[in-house]
């Protein structure tokens, strides 16, 4: 169930180069902050990322319109359907949907949206509705990875290209869908480990507040974190792994249990910001002071970055939800008839004590 | 012409349940093309017999010969497969499946690939049902049909499964008159096709309309069998109720004293023209203080429904009830209780006692708000009320805190009486107050009813026990098929008159008298 993760890479074909360039441009502030972050949080993350680049296998990584079997069209005159998986009730989903909407507006593309409210059956019917309403292109943030066959068949019948964002679907790229655009969650885990190693000095016991069980984000963020710890700081021991279900209250409750049974804990890696903030609440409630226990989280919400400024959180790895520019750029390139990568991996930035204050405005 | 073949022969069938001999050495013979009435009052053993025939129960003794060979069905399904089908009061089909699917359940036509041939099934279903007077879209779910039509489907299904015997348990209880006619014509067709029908009903008109032979059960025994035509209605009723015609009985078999003096001419309860669809038709009766009015009639004649309609437990379509001159809001049990009407329900176990609560809580249940202040229960006042009634009614329980569900039937009944007496009611509606309780407790309850009437209560007494009804009541209002068919007063309160009225003779006599006076 492990998918090979790819870093963006330079490719020789002109279309892909064009896309890569466009991504760099449209990603704008993000790209910049990524650069800064790589510099600021020092090289381990960046170095690790470069080492992980997989040599592209020819033919398996790009997708062109002829191979996919769709027809060329001009994005400006097209209707794009966007299917969001979860209710826009957390910062990530809010920012993600807003980014898609903003980009559609900016480009003057007609956008149809639907929200599955975390019900997979609704998402399937949502997408079928979007197709019925005349969507020429689809952007899908999938709730599940499996069970997409009916939708894919319906889309194929209408020759509608699909781009999935933030989660992958289990299907054949460039046949069932065009591209998958996402952060590299394993890499996020690795970079969180780097921050943790730095904050704790690479020694002592740390805990992980896991995300929801059975979620690829949870497994991958855990995998990256543990791998990097094992590799770089063997004296840092993960002694506690309990789920906080990505929720603040659960993060608080689990942390309360943790600090009583393991008073010597030095660090807590929370796989999202909310659980991290719950951990902060638990530490405050137990009379700890800021910095007593080092906390590293993933997501990059404003509250968490503020936590760094306040001294309670040591580092936040961003998981960039602003998929709009990249998704539309991919669709534009593809519908023009040029090739696009099958896996588009985003460069995420990071926040730490030195850049939190200055860059908090970029947090979502 | 040779006599029709014997389809079923039951010899010496017996079945006991703990404490009851439900069926005792019963014989029954059915011939092809025979429509056989099976009758008896509640507890006579009809349903036990049916359940033995259809494999629900196993007999303790006796044998069943079906189409020449001895059988012993382990399950109802086995009986059904062998050719004995039962149509229950409640249709036992699958409401959400289509009519056609129900009709063909378990024997669906399949095409040569083994796949359900729906088109053929629907076609055949439509054709079959037309023969039963049911013209509906067979693709509709069964539950969208009326009860009558559903019953026809069940019947058609029974016949289609090559039934040799069809048992119908009160099939007309929820049918409209027009549907009853259809049912009868179907029964006659079954008869002509050589199928034996066992017909259970309390409606005499129906029995005489379709049945040729009859078996009468009483207290688990067969007390009569033979041709129905040889038995007139009065004889049928008296056989069923176990009373010989014209037999003069000495009084004093019950604890009832018989007469009470109505202390007031103004009725304490007056019910006018109560009508409940399918159940009651313009039933009127009145009770004066200190009077015990009996409600007579066969099972299913509307006695229980009358009591429930008066007490607000059964919504009426029309009619009104006044208590001591004050009209009651219909369909509200609390309103009736506030006005002073108390109902001791027939189904003591499921509608009377609250089995998990203690004797004390059960007695105090209705009167609790009166023993409370600001919603807080005064335990002392509850104790005093409970003690009073436990003593007065001689309720035998290990302690007031014993669960009512653990008491004997008689004591449960006394607890219920105590619950109502604590409310100081004006009218007591007693539905089978002594059924299923032992002799001693029965006598006590009867005596108590007398005392209560003597104290000025108005009492409505429903009882299947004729002695109890006759000796306990000052007047008897007789119901038949949900309507009042007569009233016995004074010297006319006799078993003989009661049975004649139930059988319908009284009406005839009455009419004859009227005609005579007119002429």
């Amino acid at each position, binding site marked *: 169930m492990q998918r090979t993760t790819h870093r963006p890479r330079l490719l020789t074909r002109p279309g892909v180069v064009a896309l890569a360039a466009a991504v760099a441009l449209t990603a704008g502030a993000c790209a910049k902050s990524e650069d800064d972050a790589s510099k600021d949080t020092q090289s381990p993350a960046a170095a690790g990322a470069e080492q992980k680049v997989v040599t592209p296998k020819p033919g398996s990584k790009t997708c062109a319109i002829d191979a996919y079997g769709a027809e060329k069209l001009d994005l400006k005159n097209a209707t794009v359907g966007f299917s969001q998986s979860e*209710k*826009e*009730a*957390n*910062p990530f989903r*809010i920012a993600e949907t807003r980014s898609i909407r903003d980009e559609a507006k900016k480009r003057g593309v007609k956008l149809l949206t639907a929200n599955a409210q975390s019900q997979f059956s609704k998402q399937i019917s949502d997408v079928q509705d979007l197709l019925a309403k005349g969507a020429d292109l689809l952007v899908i943030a999938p709730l599940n990875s499996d069970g997409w066959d009916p939708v894919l068949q319906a889309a194929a019948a209408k020759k509608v290209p699909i781009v999935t964002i933030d989660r992958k679907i289990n299907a054949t790229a460039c046949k069932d869908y065009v591209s998958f655009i996402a952060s590299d969650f394993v890499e996020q885990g690795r970079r969180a480990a780097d921050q943790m190693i730095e904050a704790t000095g690479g020694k002592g016991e740390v805990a992980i507040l*896991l995300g929801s*069980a059975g979620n690829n984000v949870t497994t991958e963020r855990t995998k990256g974190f543990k791998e990097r710890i094992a590799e770089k700081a063997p004296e840092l021991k993960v002694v*506690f792994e*309990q*789920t906080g*279900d990505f*929720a*603040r*209250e*659960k993060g*608080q*409750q*689990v942390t*309360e*249990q*943790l600090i*009583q*049974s393991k*008073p010597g804990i030095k660090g807590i890696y929370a796989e999202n910001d*909310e659980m991290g*903030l*719950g951990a902060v*609440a638990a530490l405050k*409630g*137990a009379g700890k002071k800021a910095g007593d226990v080092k906390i590293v989280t993933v997501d990059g919400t404003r*509250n968490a970055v503020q936590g760094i400024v306040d001294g309670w959180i040591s580092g936040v790895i961003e998981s960039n939800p602003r998929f709009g520019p990249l998704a539309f750029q991919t669709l534009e390139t593809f519908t023009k008839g040029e090739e696009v990568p099958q896996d588009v991996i985003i460069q995420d930035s990071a926040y730490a004590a030195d850049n939190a204050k200055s860059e908090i405005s970029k947090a979502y | 012409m040779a006599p029709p073949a014997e389809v079923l022969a039951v010899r010496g069938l017996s079945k006991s349940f703990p404490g009851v001999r439900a069926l005792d050495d019963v014989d029954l013979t059915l011939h092809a093309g025979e429509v056989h009435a099976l009758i008896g009052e509640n507890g006579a053993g009809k349903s036990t017999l049916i359940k033995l025939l259809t494999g629900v129960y196993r007999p303790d003794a006796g044998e069943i010969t079906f189409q020449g060979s001895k059988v012993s069905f382990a399950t109802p399904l086995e009986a059904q497969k062998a050719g004995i089908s039962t149509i229950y009061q409640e249709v036992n089909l699958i409401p959400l499946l289509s009519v056609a699917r129900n009709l063909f359940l378990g024997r669906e036509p399949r095409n040569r690939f083994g796949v359900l041939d729906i088109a053929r099934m629907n076609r055949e279903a439509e054709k079959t049902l037309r023969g039963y007077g049911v013209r509906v879209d067979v693709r509709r779910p069964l539950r969208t049909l009326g009860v009558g039509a559903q019953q026809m489907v069940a019947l058609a299904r029974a016949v289609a499964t090559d039934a040799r015997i069809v048992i119908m348990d009160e099939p007309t209880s929820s049918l409209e008159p027009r549907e009853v006619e259809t049912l009868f014509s179907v029964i006659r067709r079954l008869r002509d096709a050589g199928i034996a029908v066992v017909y259970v009903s309390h409606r005499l008109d129906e029995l005489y309309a379709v049945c040729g032979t009859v078996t009468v059960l009483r207290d688990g025994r067969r007390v009569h069998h033979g041709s129905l035509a040889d038995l007139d209605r009065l004889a049928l009723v008296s056989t069923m109720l176990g009373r010989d015609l014209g037999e003069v009985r000495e009084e004093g078999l019950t604890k009832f004293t018989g007469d009470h003096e109505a202390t007031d001419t103004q009725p304490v309860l007056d019910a006018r023209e109560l009508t409940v669809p399918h159940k009651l038709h313009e039933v009127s009766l009145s009770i004066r203080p200190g009077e015990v009015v009996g409600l007579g009639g066969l099972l299913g004649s509307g006695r229980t429904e009358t009591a429930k309609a008066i*007490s607000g*437990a059964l919504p009426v379509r029309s009619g009104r009830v006044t208590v001591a001159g004050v009209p009651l809001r219909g369909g509200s*049990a*609390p309103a*009736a*209780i*506030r006005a002073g009407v108390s*109902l001791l*329900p027939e189904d003591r176990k*499921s*509608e*009377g006692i*609250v*089995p*998990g*609560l203690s004797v004390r*809580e059960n007695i*105090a*249940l*209705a009167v*609790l*708000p009166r023993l*409370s202040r600001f*919603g*807080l*229960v005064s*335990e002392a006042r509850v104790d005093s009320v409970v003690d009073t009634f436990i003593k007065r009614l001689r309720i035998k329980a290990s302690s007031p805190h014993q669960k009512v569900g653990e008491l004997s039937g008689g004591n449960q009944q006394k607890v219920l009486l105590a*619950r109502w007496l604590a409310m100081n009611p004006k009218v007591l509606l007693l539905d089978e107050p002594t059924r299923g309780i032992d002799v001693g407790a029965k006598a006590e309850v009867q005596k108590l009813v007398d005392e209560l009437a003597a104290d000025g209560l108005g009492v409505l007494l429903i009882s299947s026990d004729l002695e109890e009804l006759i000796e306990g009541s000052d007047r008897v209002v007789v119901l038949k098929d949900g309507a009042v068919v007569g009233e016995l007063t004074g010297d006319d309160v006799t078993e003989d008159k009661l049975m004649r009225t139930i059988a319908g003779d009284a009406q005839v006599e009455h009419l004859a008298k009227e005609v005579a006076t007119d002429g």
Partner: protein
Amino acid sequence: MAEATLRTVPLDKARVLQWLQTYGVYAGVAALLVVNTVITPHFLSAENFRTQAVQVAPVIIVALGMALVIGTEGVDLSVGAVMALAASVTALYLGYGLLPALLVVALFAAAVGLANGALVALVGVQPIVATLALMVGGRGLALVLLPQLEDLRNPSLASLGSGDVLGIPYLILIAAVLAVLVAFVVRRTTFGRQLLAIGDSRPAAQLAGLPVRRVLIIVYVVCALLAAVAGVLATARLQASDPTSLGNLMELSAITAVVVGGTPLTGGRVNIAGTVAGAVLIQLLTATLIKHDLPPSWTQIAQAIVIVAAVYAARGRGKR
């Protein structure tokens, strides 16, 4: 008597089951306390007990209402949604002060309870279906009112969540007072007895002239109000309103606490002390597994085992 001696063996089994159903939950709590004292480091400390009590307090409060509903042979699936709704409404009205906000929360909760009660008592919808509608709709409304988590910085709310009297946190005090109050209502009031009678035999209660509809409606309103109290307290403790995840699966925790505590799902009996102990049992079980860093799925399995054991013990005393 002769019969009794003949049936010694099954009687003994029934007696064991009965004992288990009545006292099993206390035995379980005691066993967990003893085991943890031995195997869990830092377990026997005031801070730890305080943590466990504070964490379990909202569950207890919700379970109290649930016990009343279950006593009427019903169930209320909407309690988690009511908690979320309470969180949203608190966030929206906190600007007017804590008390006004609490008042509006109570109004919203009462409305949900009324809707539940009306569906069950007047329309005759099965409780599980009626409250399922509000379980979905209530959380939906909560998210419409407040689409995302919001941090709350209100000193009164903060002190409600983390303050104490004589070292006892408000949360624990409130849960204890409510438990005593609900137990009193069940045992000593007309309402409590009518509730039990309705739960044991609705037809009998109806024929006995009890105000069946009124009692049922009040029960669902009370249950919703208690859930709202729990929602406000959890929000106060978190100092954030989180309508997305607050109260998720709370209905299951509450039902578990009630059933494990010896209140039969068939109605007619309510065991408040057992319900409190049931909630504590689940809390200690979860805490034990977390403290020993056992896989989270084990918690669910352990809870399932406790429920099955409770239901098995209840089997012997169910309705016949």
